[in-house]
């Protein structure tokens, strides 16, 4: 009797799942075959890595698009974080079950270009002579190689300094003047340091997560390149240069000095941990992406006043700007021109002033479209939270030349930098050793990549 019950359940489950299996299979089939519109809307899939409040905001944008016209329906599907989404993309290409639009992070740019599985956005721009003058030039520059724009920047950010204005006042520092260089950071941190009766630090002056993105930004600030061949943009990079051109050494020396001073905290590699420390008042200054601003303001909830400033220079003489972070939207080449056109329409919508205004107000990423600044939503948001202005000013103060490097093995290269900085801060190796070790790993990875991906 038990056996019969079990087999009944099994039968039901299998039948149910077969039915749903049938349903989805047909839909898949239809989706792949739709070359005629026939009065029915074209459906395209959009894979992204936006979770939390970002995902909610993104879904609203997609909903707006679907409601704004009747020819195209976009289905947005969350595929895990950026790494997981990219891995799924790689696997899906074997079985042709990939998306039509893909959101890929900045450091995956070279991979996407090399994969030859995308249709460069430039094609569509040229075809209809689309006017891109209202889009931020620095953002376009990052995703442009050989005068070809490959993907559409969508959620872009820059690194900024967050600081606790209330703590500044308490320490006798001017709350409207954040430090401009790491030297100033060091002297201010000494004043901001607070300890309790037992000698345990309750407030560090400053902290920066061991995040390789910040390392790259500091290289750009110093006007130094990360890799050769024009940072991988005039030709494929073959080696990294940060360990040879002195930029890395100056930075790491400064970094070590800061942490050794005792007034700078080290909360590890996860930016979220340093962010939590800032919100809890454990550190009075920290570095993070502009995209975290709304979350930081919400987390602080008025406990203290939050200020923002430019990314500090490494040395006072630095003249460089900053590059961007975040992700962009790619049109995948599924050999279906109707879907590609639909994807292009979707991309144009996503960078329109109104949608970018909503996106900016609800996330903290700055608008890709300059026209968004004229809209009330953005103006109101800036009036309410002037801290948002810093990132915008910093972006405009940089030139397109300060765009970051292109590497097919960026994730691995970043991890090498982070692990070795970690070991350096733990006293296990000198700055130059850290740089050389990281470079060795990066170079071997670059070498293998170039060999296997001709």
């Amino acid at each position, binding site marked *: 009797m038990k056996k019969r019950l079990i087999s009944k359940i099994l039968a039901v489950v299998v039948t149910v799942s077969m039915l749903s299996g049938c349903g989805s299979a047909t839909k898949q089939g239809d989706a792949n075959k739709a070359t005629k519109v026939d009065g029915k809307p074209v459906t395209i899939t959009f894979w992204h890595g936006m979770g939390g409040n970002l995902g909610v905001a993104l879904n609203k944008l997609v909903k707006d698009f679907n409601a704004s016209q009747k020819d195209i329906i976009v289905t947005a599907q969350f595929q895990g974080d950026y*790494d997981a989404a990219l891995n799924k993309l790689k696997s899906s290409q*074997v079985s042709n079950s990939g998306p039509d639009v893909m959101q890929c992070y900045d450091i995956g740019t070279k991979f996407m270009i*090399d*994969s030859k599985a995308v249709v460069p956005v430039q094609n569509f721009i040229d075809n209809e002579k689309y006017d891109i003058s209202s889009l931020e030039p620095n953002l376009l520059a990052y995703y442009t190689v050989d005068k070809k724009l490959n993907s559409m920047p969508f959620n872009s950010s820059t690194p900024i300094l967050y600081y606790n204005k209330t703590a500044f006042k308490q320490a006798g520092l001017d709350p409207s003047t954040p430090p401009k260089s790491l030297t100033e950071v060091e002297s201010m941190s000494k004043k901001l340091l607070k300890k309790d009766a037992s000698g345990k630090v309750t407030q560090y002056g400053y902290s920066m997560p061991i995040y390789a993105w910040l390392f790259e930004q500091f290289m750009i600030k110093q006007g130094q390149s990360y890799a050769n061949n024009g940072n991988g943009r005039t030709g494929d990079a073959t080696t990294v240069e940060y360990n040879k051109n002195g930029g890395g050494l100056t930075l790491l020396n400064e970094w070590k000095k800061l942490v050794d001073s005792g007034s700078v905290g080290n*909360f590890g*590699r*996860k930016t979220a941990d340093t962010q*939590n420390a800032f919100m809890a008042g454990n550190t009075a200054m920290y570095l993070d992406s502009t995209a975290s601003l709304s979350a930081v303001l919400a987390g602080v909830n008025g406990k203290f006043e939050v200020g923002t400033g430019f990314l500090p220079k490494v040395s006072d003489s630095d003249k460089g700007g900053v590059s961007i972070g975040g992700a962009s939207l790619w049109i995948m080449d599924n050999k279906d021109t109707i879907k590609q056109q639909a994807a292009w329409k979707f991309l144009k919508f996503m960078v329109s002033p109104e949608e970018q205004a909503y996106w900016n107000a609800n996330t903290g990423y700055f608008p890709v479209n300059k026209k968004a600044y004229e809209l009330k939503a953005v103006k109101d948001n800036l009036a309410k939270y002037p801290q948002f202005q810093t990132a915008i000013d910093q972006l405009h103060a940089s030139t397109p030349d300060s765009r970051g490097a292109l590497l097919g*093995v960026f994730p691995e290269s970043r991890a090498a930098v982070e692990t070795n900085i970690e070991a350096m801060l733990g006293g296990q190796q000198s700055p130059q050793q850290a740089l050389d070790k990281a470079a060795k790993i990066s170079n071997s990875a670059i070498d293998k990549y170039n060999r296997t*991906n001709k």
Partner: protein
Amino acid sequence: MDEIILAKQKITKLQLKKSKTNLKTKLEPYIFLFPSLLLFSLFVYYPFFKTLYMSLGLTNAHGNFQEFIGLQNYVEILTSPDFINSLIVTMKFVVFTTIPSIVIGLLLALLANNKVKGLSISKVMFAVPIAVSSASASIIWGMIFHPSIGMLNTILKTNIGWLLDPQWALLSVSFVTIWMNLGVNFIFIFAGLKNIPEEILESSSIDGASYFKKLFSIIIPMISPTLFFMVFMDIMNAFQSFGQVNILTNGGPGNSTNVLVFSIYREAFFNGRFDTASAQSIILFIVMFIMAMFQFRYEKKGVHYS
């Protein structure tokens, strides 16, 4: 004569029936094993051989096989200090998690194995960690370990970087793993305890045996099949622990928690190098296989079946 023919017919009929049933009995085990073996072939053995194949070549960023290079990947890995580090970290991790998991699981089972009324709630509490996924457990413990807002430092009045200090990170991750294992260990060992016939325990009490004597000469031998199974699974699970490392420490700080399976994940899904990741997987498999061989040898000596 007729009777003899009839008798012979009866005998042949019986023999036929017997051989039919004999054949059926002979085939039965294979039939029973068929569903599992089919599923394993498709979803374990086939991918495994694919992995073996990939470990002998070069793959591109998409995971496609490019060219055959023999054992080069293995040489590269076995001479890399990072890989040796991963091996050592993994072995440490296995020891740090398995022994406490079994011991505490046994203690919990013994504690719960009594006739006191109203204790079913405590049995549920002992097993609760089983209901928590490794991701959930890691997020909760990650918060408790946090350097600024973490509860642990506050309660213990310490200032330890549980996940940031290379001295502590592996211990912290092991601790979380042990907590996660408690539920499973408790449930299975408890089930094993419940199967010990009452009479044996009662009669030994009448004979005047102390609790510890009962424990070591009766209880543990009688549940040794369960214990063996549990130790085996704890060790194998330790080798495959991924979620906690991924969320709590990402293999750091300074590779101090970079267990083998995490290194494989990074190599495949982060660095995009399926060839070396496959080679690492094969090596991990061999290590686990050797461990299993040792354990099964011990099974013959130390485990008692009725």
